[in-house]
């Protein structure tokens, strides 16, 4: 690991983080943690509060209430936030480059600010992206702008990379390349916090996910636990299934559709299956693994009704 800084438990921590736009609550008392050294996926629908949260973390916007720490810097204070941004790389939708500089100048300029700049990564990416070094950045195509922004962000040797929808608008080859960059940065010891709509890519590289809905955290778990423990159980019953019959630890949601009773379990699926089999008139109970996509969709369907 290249970062020799003091080992801290969390790269990002928020407590009751809240943002109002007028009377609209974009972020509502968000308390979350991003453990250092992880690749954490930040999921949620459009308007769920992902970008507002990221903007507050970066000090680009003040919270209405609540607190947050990014690499031990208080996000509410202005000076620490500048220090903090030296150690945090951010790639958002707006790929901010200085239009009058060429790619070469842009790289040299950025490099001069960061003692942790990694020339190996920079050269490798320059080679792979085949960027025109002497072209002014304002004359770059959209794809090349993105590649330049990624090169700058990933070569900085940042401790924390915050990426807002990084693969949005990238073709599949570039999107996979980006995931590879994320994995490489994580191998260097960086923490990656990235928002995404694309559940499949989160499932591929993240170790943790945070799912927010209407400004609140609705799911905080690891991908390993999802594939190990989350299950859908389905049983067929001739008799009506009494409500409350499945008040068992791990049952997140019960849906009855005619004779089919479907249970979403976050853990404890064996015991739940036993209970379902024991129920009157119950026949076979199927236990089906769940994908992250299904869990996300279920979690966004509203409050559980057990």
């Amino acid at each position, binding site marked *: 690991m290249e970062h020799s800084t003091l080992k801290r438990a969390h790269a990002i921590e928020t407590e009751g983080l809240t943002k109002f736009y007028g009377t609209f609550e974009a972020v509502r008392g968000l308390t979350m943690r991003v453990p250092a050294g992880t690749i954490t996926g930040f999921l949620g629908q459009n308007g769920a509060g992902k970008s507002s949260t990221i903007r507050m973390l970066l000090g680009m916007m003040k919270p209405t209430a609540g607190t947050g720490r990014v690499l031990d810097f208080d996000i509410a204070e202005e000076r620490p936030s500048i220090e903090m941004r030296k150690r945090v790389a951010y790639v958002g939708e707006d790929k901010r480059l200085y239009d009058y500089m060429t790619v070469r100048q842009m790289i040299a300029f950025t490099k001069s600010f960061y003692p942790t700049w990694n020339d190996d990564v920079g050269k490798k990416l320059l080679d792979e992206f085949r960027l025109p070094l002497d072209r002014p950045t304002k004359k770059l195509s959209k794809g090349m702008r993105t590649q330049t922004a990624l090169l700058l962000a990933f070569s900085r040797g940042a401790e924390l990379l915050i990426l807002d929808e990084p693969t949005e608008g990238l073709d599949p080859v570039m999107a996979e390349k980006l995931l*590879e960059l994320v994995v490489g940065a994580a191998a260097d010891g960086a923490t990656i916090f990235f928002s995404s709509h694309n559940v499949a890519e989160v499932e591929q590289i993240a170790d943790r996910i945070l799912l927010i809905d209407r400004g609140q955290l609705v799911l905080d778990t690891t991908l390993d636990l999802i594939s190990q423990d989350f299950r859908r159980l389905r049983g067929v019953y001739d008799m009506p299934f009494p409500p409350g019959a499945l008040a068992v630890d791990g049952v997140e949601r019960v849906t009855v559709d005619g004779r089919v009773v479907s249970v979403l379990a976050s853990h404890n699926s064996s015991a739940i299956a036993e209970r379902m089999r024991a129920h009157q008139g119950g026949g076979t109970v199927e236990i089906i693994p769940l*994908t992250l996509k299904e869990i996300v969709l279920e979690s966004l369907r509203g409050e559980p009704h057990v």
Partner: protein
Amino acid sequence: MTLFLKPNPANGVPIYLQLKEQIMHACETGALKAGDSLPGIRVLAESLVINPNTVARVYRELEQEGVLELRHGIGAFVAATGRTTRWTAARTGQMQAAQKAAKEFVGELRRRRIEPDEIRRLVEAELSSGARQRFGRTGSGD
């Protein structure tokens, strides 16, 4: 990298277990032999586009299980006295027998007019209902 395939995140088996099983399998089939080196954590993570923490965890666990040896600063090697090396011959026989049993089992179910999809679900249900319960269960603790 052709030795290992990209794990499939959606098949109900954690990526770390898929990778672990692939490495064990490579040792058992002789694709990897005692003393052979494994790719570095970074190289393997980048080529499979998976989390490096996952690769590190798999290497650590396989070291504890005596399959791999981790030499600090050099990398991971298939252990010379590892149990998978000793298993190879016996294990190959076992796997062949298991394959035969699976063939008979699937054939029997097909004769009973169980569709391939149904067979997959039945097997998956059996595997899901006990085998993976030994792991921790909540995600928020750290």
